[in-house]
């Protein structure tokens, strides 16, 4: 091996690393930009300057202050948290099931979370604090059920997705039954099914933040293990990886994330499927890069869609779920078609 060859290979590796660092830098700047946009846009046309000065001068009662603190900030945070959580949950689920068609929405994790959240909200209306916990338990139960099917019954990838879709529609029927029987549950029912951020408050998100934080930490801890797992279970095991534990903890992290996101943002459908795919296009399959890339892209995507939902027909608000599908659908299709035949199942 000649020295020049060695150094040119080194250089190539460094260049790739540099481009990935650049990618993350770009994503962080985009996130900052979209956050400012989200703080700025809405039915009340206050400029950022007006709101910041109201904040700085401590005009606690002024309309600018109230809109900023009670509407714009919670909403922006909700978009970031939920986008980040659902995208990372989707990435984890796809890695564990080794199935690019899977996502928290497709395999019923979201509807499991939604069903339990709805149940908690109906049965214990005085205790809104249990909603994130119930949501997490619902997400975990559904995820473990699908995982057990995948591992124990050795379902093929397609069968697994079909099983997930079936579980999902059973749970959705459950949610619909509850909303029909108890139309006055504290979770706004119609908004919950489509997903969105219009009624979100800091109070609603307060507990979910802990779940998301925990889920992200666990996901980060699993990144290297998931990298080894992508070599296949047998090779991973012979390298000394505890395959079962890695899969279980990753599912746990995904359930924490998806459950928490659903508890305050409802059944947002597309993020968990679309964003991991888009992120893989940019970051590859190395989870150490893929997970953060997906997290940022999820947050940016949801912020962008939510801002559009507020400004398109202002002062009326358009459901963010619809925008997401209208924007994300064609993008996802083009992503699929750009892959060679069959390659999407990586």
């Amino acid at each position: 091996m000649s020295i020049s060859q060695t150094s040119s290979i080194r250089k190539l590796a460094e260049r790739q690393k540099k481009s990935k660092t650049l990618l993350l830098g770009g994503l962080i700047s985009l996130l900052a930009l979209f956050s400012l946009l989200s703080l700025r846009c809405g039915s009340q046309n206050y400029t950022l300057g007006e709101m910041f000065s109201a904040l700085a001068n401590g005009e606690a009662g002024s309309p600018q202050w109230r809109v900023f603190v009670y509407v714009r900030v919670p909403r922006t945070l909700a978009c970031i948290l939920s986008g980040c959580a659902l995208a990372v949950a989707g990435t984890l689920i796809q890695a564990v099931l080794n199935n690019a068609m899977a996502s928290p929405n497709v395999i019923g994790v979201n509807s499991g979370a939604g069903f339990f959240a709805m149940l908690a909200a109906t049965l214990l209306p005085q205790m809104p604090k249990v909603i994130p916990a119930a949501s997490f338990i619902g997400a975990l139960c559904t995820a473990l059920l699908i995982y057990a099917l995948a591992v124990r019954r050795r379902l093929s990838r397609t069968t697994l997705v079909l099983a997930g879709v079936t579980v999902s529609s059973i749970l959705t029927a459950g949610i619909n039954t509850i909303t029909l029987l108890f139309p006055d549950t504290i979770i706004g029912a119609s908004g919950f099914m489509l997903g969105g951020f219009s009624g979100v408050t800091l109070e609603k998100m307060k507990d979910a933040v802990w779940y998301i934080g925990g889920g992200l930490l666990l996901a980060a801890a699993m990144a290297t293990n998931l990298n080894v797992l992508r070599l296949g279970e047998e090779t991973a095991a012979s390298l000394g990886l505890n395959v079962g534990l890695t899969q279980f903890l990753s599912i746990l992290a995904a359930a924490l994330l998806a459950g928490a996101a659903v508890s305050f943002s409802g059944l947002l459908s597309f993020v968990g499927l679309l964003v991991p795919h888009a992120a893989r296009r940019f970051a590859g399959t190395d989870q150490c890069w893929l997970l953060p890339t997906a997290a940022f892209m999820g947050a940016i995507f949801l912020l962008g869609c939510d801002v559009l939902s507020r400004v398109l027909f202002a002062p009326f608000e358009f459901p963010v779920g619809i925008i997401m599908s209208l924007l994300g659908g064609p993008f996802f299709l083009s992503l699929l078609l750009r892959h060679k035949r069959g390659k999407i199942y990586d």
Partner: protein
Amino acid sequence: MIELIHVDAGYGEKKVLKDITFRLPKGKITSIIGPNGCGKTTLLRVAARQLPVQSGAVIAAGRPVGSYRRKEFARFAALMPQVRDIPSISVEGLVSHGRFPYLGFSRKMRPTDREKVREAMELTEVFQWAQREVRELSGGERQRVYLAMVLAQDTEVVFLDEPTTYLDLRHQFELLELIEMLHQRGKTVVMVLHDLAHALRYSHHVVLMEQGRILAEQKPKTLLQSGKIDRVFGVTSHWVQEGDSYYFTKAKLQTKERSGEQ
């Protein structure tokens, strides 16, 4: 070294290996041969601690394999399974995974780990592809990359499950030469091989299996002369020896013995 004592093993209720007792010859190349479904891969997986036994014991370096921690065993023995998902990953990325059992809690590669990875890539001559996608490579080239990963794992024992299957002739020999090199570097190699000529030419010790049992384990030539290979495979073969190579020139099917089994 690794030793199996009265081992029964299989999947679920099914018993694939029946009362296997076997000691792995240290520092040698051992090939496991036998008809399809006789339990070769199962034997490999049991010895490599990938499949728990139903009864009996597997001892590695004087300790039962169950007493090893996962990564500890992965520093002692490596397994290259036959069927693999080929992920989207660079050659260097894949070979680096061979260092996984050595990484600490932070999972960071130290300079010594990088050195081992580079050395493994050079010995297997895959260094020039370091940044290429493993998927872009041909079957034979991929096999070399996987062997580089096993080499980076830096273990005393190496298990290979049909390393030459599906490869063209040139790549088969390339790989077998690399396996020879592993032996020269002091490793104990155990492999499942389908090609009898390869098994006889490249190994010091051959294990002949039939229906979950070990029928014989001997030096290649002794085994060949004993006629047991013919009996197990249900053929009458003619072979010639040239140097240290064996060629099977003609084989007649023995119909009588097989018909009773069906």
